[in-house]
């Protein structure tokens, strides 16, 4: 049936997201919280996340526009970003954000800035993958969960 192949596709996509460490276990947690009241909980949260994280990235961008760079504000933003990324299981984004924080703490401006590019890229990649994934997921109906990396 069409559903099956779609589901297989969805499952494969999902698995690759874990394999590439773009997502982590927290994503599974979100999926597990889905129920009658929130059948698309993971998608809802991801949408929320993208909305907030995009704003955060813009703020960080602005804060890095010209010196002097307010390290405190930057760290605040990054902390927020790290937190939200952790909430939805956005693994790569979280890791890159953390590296950026460390660079900031080390007061290494260059590394902070270059790390920021990595953060943005990871964020973009995630968005690029999650959107078609959820789209396909909706089309396929409830999908069987692939095995998350342990």
């Amino acid at each position, binding site marked *: 049936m069409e559903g099956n192949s779609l589901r297989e596709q969805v499952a494969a996509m999902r698995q690759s997201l874990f394999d590439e460490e773009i997502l982590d276990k927290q994503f599974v947690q979100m999926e597990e919280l889905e129920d009658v009241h929130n059948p698309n909980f993971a998608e809802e949260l991801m949408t*929320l996340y993208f909305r907030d994280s995009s704003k955060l990235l813009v703020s960080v961008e602005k804060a890095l526009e010209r010196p002097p760079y307010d390290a405190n*504000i930057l760290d605040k933003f990054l902390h927020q970003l790290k937190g939200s990324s*952790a909430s939805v299981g956005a693994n790569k984004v979280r890791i890159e954000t953390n590296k950026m924080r460390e660079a900031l703490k080390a007061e290494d401006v260059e590394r902070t800035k270059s790390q920021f590019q990595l953060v943005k890229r990871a964020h973009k990649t995630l968005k690029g993958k999650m959107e078609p994934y959820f789209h396909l997921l909706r089309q396929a109906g409830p999908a069987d969960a692939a095995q998350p990396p342990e």
Partner: protein
Amino acid sequence: MESSFSSPRNDTFPAGLRVLVVDDDPTWLKILEKMLKRCSYEVTTCGLARDALHLLRQKKDGYDIVISDVNMPDMDGFRLLEHVGLEMDLPVIMMSVDGETSRVMRGVQHGACDYLLKPIRMKELRNIWQHVFRKKIHEIRDIESHESLEGIQLIRSGSDQYDEGYFLNADDLTSSRKRKDVDNKYDDKDFADFSSTKKARVVWSVDLHQKFVKAVHHIGFDKVGPKKILDLMNVPWLTRENVASHLQKYRLYLSRLQKENELKSSCGGMKHSDYSSKDAQGSFGLQNSISIQQSDVAHGSFKVSGDNLVSQRVGTKSHESDIEGIVSEPVAEPKKGLNGNIPDPQKTRSPQMDFNNSYAETKICLIGNVPDSQKIRTPQVRPSHSIALVESEVNFTEFESAIPTKYSWNEIPLNKAQKPLIQLNSGFNKPPLPGPHSHFQVDRVQSIPSISSRPSTAEEDVTGPAKSKPSYSECINTQGSHVSPSTTDSFPDQIKSCLVNHQVSEAISTSTANMEYQGFNLNCITDLESAQRNLIMGSASPFASLDDGFQICWYQGDCYGMNLGLQNIEFPEYNDPALVSELWPFWVVTGLFFFFFFSFRGCQPAESINLHAYP
């Protein structure tokens, strides 16, 4: 507190555990909410620490545990933690995506009962009920060990405390207990004088705390010391260490209140400018009013610390530590300020009031603007004194009511050392301050009849008087012997039952304290935080009918703002009865009804006939 043990919720414990989640990240809020609901807990979410505090103060007994993120935009999670520990004594769990040891340690130092790392797993959330359970067990142990002693003290010394605005003490009981718990948490704080290491907890009853505060004021804040206090208090079983640690907590509390109000005023300054301008009292920026008061007493340090606090808040990451540093500085200050204010009630009181009421502006001088009667009343709230109530005090705008006499019932002549909030409410009670107070008092008493004849005017103030009711009942409860001598027979039983019911007084006093000032300028309240309004509305309603009884009884007794009763009559129109049930546990309301009913019977019939309590 014991009341929570008797609630039906506990039958299926831990299911139905009422959790308040505070996190600025909406994604986390959603996830945690979902997870906690999966654990069969009752979840309330909050995006701001301020909102969380309001919710907590609104429903003092409405939550079992608080889970809060460490980093929040409007308030540091650790500060929220301190507040919750001080005011509500609820277990607080901190969470963060950062798991650095230093942070975790800070959490524990500030009193967190646990520190969770995000992302949080279901199993971790399932177990949070143990903190609630543990705390309750400890509280029971503490209470039981002092129950007999204090129960006797309360009943016996009810008459002694009459003058000092007794109902406040009930609130003190709660917060004293809580502070006592907190005390252990703050042992590592930098208050050098006292070697208050962890020890067996003394439960500071209302009566005990009152004695304490009385002694402190008598000695003078700047000269105070645990030995002197202990000697003055004359409580045989109390040790110098007990007093020392309590003094430490008291100071800490005062300074935190100060800080909190300053911060609030700085944050909310813009918002509340409206209502303050309406009043003759004017609206004080909290900071300014504090500074004014302090400077009146020649203590500018508060101001300084407050400013520091504010400026620090604005942008530094490490402001928490700075604030802590500040805390230790002004610790001595508030007392001095209080000292200075006490002797001159008229002058100092109004600024205090304004302080509480208005966030926004920096108008300073109430004294000039406010008519004497009004002025005197308002300052009663002493920010430094009321631990839990300070926040709510700020909320009330009041005192602008057209009827000057109205204020009087709100004023509760607490012992100057007592919580200022209560004083405000008690109005008519014998003012603890000498001179002006006493004659002021007289004025009030006389004005009572006039008030009653103008029920319509009271409507505006409805919320105000209603609120203070709880405190009045407290007073009545605790000072049973003073109440209408003619009804001694019927009263004592009721009173005693009320007396023993600490929870009633606690509930009453806490809600009262929050609501006390609400009354007069309801209009002005719009700018105030919604919680305050809720408090007013919520707390006012149950007492509407009780006021009558109050009024009458107190006349015979020592004039507890019976006016309240009159004014409260208006209440029913204003308050949504549904709020009553929400805010007041049934037994509280019942107890109060009984109390009023009986007291009423002993008094002149007058208008109190509308008491629901009549069978």
